[in-house]
């Protein structure tokens, strides 16, 4: 996967508009599909002190390759089925209340069930890589080991009741916030019919790319020919610009492109640190898109120092280059180390999570 550097599109605007009635361009769809299909390995075991009597201890671990864009409460039915049907003795387990079940990592940190699974995984992988005992791992993905507790959730430290309904509301809230960040209002999201809004969550629950994107494409900016200085669209498309997005079957108009948003919905996760969120306009100036490098230098300059300038030219060195800068840290998006020249607007259109947010996790190089 070495081709993230490509962020420009060489289609002619005219050709794209004629193909665009239903389709987002190929490039964007490819990355959205890759994001959607991304999975991470989870290994779930019940706290041995809480196993009901007569449980089958040979089967104490549930392994699942979970979609990055999904949520732990949505995995609960299959986890519950595994433990109740195969592991727990029926009599001993009959009084268990699954609304009291909660997760902890093997290291003892509480798991934030309202975070997408991919984000939980990436953060955890980075934390684990910083522990003195960790070794530089091979390319094999290490499962995220979770301990499932069956009772007494620590309510003062956890959000209450990780029910699917609470999870859905949190998810819809994130989508609306992302909408607000991009355009200064939530009317693209709230303008969708209730059925469509519910369809977004159904797409997550059923893990169906087409169902989800059938609705999401109406509100998510694309990176198709939508640069600020692009030529004016041909008159046949001009009428699309004035229709409200939900009435427009062709998807967002050029005006709704990823490079025209007010700010990109992005959050920064520093190891064992707070979540950082700031304004991220897509362009530095009229001609320069904001890159990941600009973003990181702005927010965490100690970890992403700017290159000092090149030394002045001299007879011995007429074409000096700036000296190489040590890179103490790297940026992970959807589990992939991102080249720092990646454009933020492109990330917003192509590698955001299903909740609309680009999550940048910072790892430290050994």
């Amino acid at each position: 996967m070495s081709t993230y550097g490509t962020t420009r599109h060489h289609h002619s605007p005219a050709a794209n508009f004629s193909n665009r009635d239903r389709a987002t361009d190929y490039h964007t769809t490819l990355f959205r599909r890759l994001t959607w299909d991304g999975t991470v390995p989870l290994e779930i075991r019940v706290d041995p002190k809480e196993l009901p009597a007569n449980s089958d201890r040979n089967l104490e671990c549930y392994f699942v390759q979970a979609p990055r864009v999904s949520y732990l409460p949505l995995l609960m039915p299959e986890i519950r089925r595994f433990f109740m049907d195969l592991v727990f003795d029926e009599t001993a387990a009959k009084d268990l209340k699954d609304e009291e079940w909660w997760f902890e990592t093997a290291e003892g940190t509480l798991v934030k069930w309202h975070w997408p699974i991919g984000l939980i995984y990436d953060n955890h992988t980075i934390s684990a890589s910083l522990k003195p005992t960790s070794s530089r791992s091979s390319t094999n993905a290490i499962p995220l080991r979770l301990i499932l507790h069956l009772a007494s959730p620590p309510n003062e430290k956890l959000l209450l009741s990780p029910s699917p309904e609470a999870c859905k509301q949190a998810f819809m809230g994130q989508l609306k916030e992302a909408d607000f960040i991009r355009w200064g209002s939530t009317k693209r999201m709230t303008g969708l019919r209730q059925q469509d809004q519910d369809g977004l969550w159904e797409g997550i629950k059923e893990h169906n790319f087409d169902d989800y994107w059938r609705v999401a494409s109406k509100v998510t900016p694309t990176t198709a020919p939508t640069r600020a200085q692009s030529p004016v669209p041909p008159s046949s498309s001009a009428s699309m610009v004035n229709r409200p997005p939900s009435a427009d079957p062709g998807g967002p108009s050029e005006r709704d492109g990823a490079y025209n948003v007010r700010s990109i919905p992005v959050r920064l996760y520093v190891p064992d640190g707070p979540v950082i969120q700031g304004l991220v306009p897509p362009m530095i100036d009229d001609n320069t898109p904001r890159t990941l490098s600009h973003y990181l230098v702005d927010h965490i300059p100690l970890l992403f120092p700017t290159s000092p300038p090149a030394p002045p030219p001299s007879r011995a060195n007429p074409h000096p280059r700036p000296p190489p800068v040590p890179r103490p840290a790297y940026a992970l998006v959807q589990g992939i180390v991102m080249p720092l020249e990646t454009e933020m607007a492109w990330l917003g259109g192509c590698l955001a999570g299903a909740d609309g947010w680009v999550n940048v996790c910072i790892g430290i190089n050994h």
Partner: protein
Amino acid sequence: MLTRPQFDRACKLLVQEYESSRPSFVTNALRGWLWTEHPSVCSLGYLSRNSNYLSRHMEPFIHIDSNDNYTEIDEAAAPICIDTEALTSQQYVVYSATFQVPCFYFTMYHSNGAPLPINELLSSTLFRPGILQDANTTTFALTRRNTAFPLLSQGDHPTTGKPCWFLHPCETTIAVEELLKEVEKVADSEDAKLLSWLKMWFVVLGSIIDLA
């Protein structure tokens, strides 16, 4: 709307103005706040304070029917409740990075340390009467009819990461700016305008939350 530096400045001005003032009914909402910053990341500062409230136990303030619908009983018709319990609340004014306005976060506990479920929160003296009007309540949120976001729901404190309840800030700017039109003088200094904005925000908050 406020930028983060404006929010920081307004909060510090507020703390400064009221830190040595005497308690009074009028200023209680604005007193007792402490400015705290994140130990290593700048621009994540917030105001915090502790407050005490009472629960309203008897003569239910909130009626729950067999379908789990919460409705409020008219206070004038309900007998005064005598048996109340002391509750402690940690309150925070944080900056909402998304909506670029202050946002009110809080937690509330019984004296034994147990956190309150939502129906007990809503019947405590923290909330002004009328909170349930036109609203749908679940165990995790209260949502007014025809609004995009729940009025009250849970979220992580942006600086400490602690789970809290919070009031959604999205309607605040409109309300505050409407009110400011009535009082602001063009000749005010930048600092005076910022302090004014924050105080007006407290007024708007005060219509939902009892901050005394």
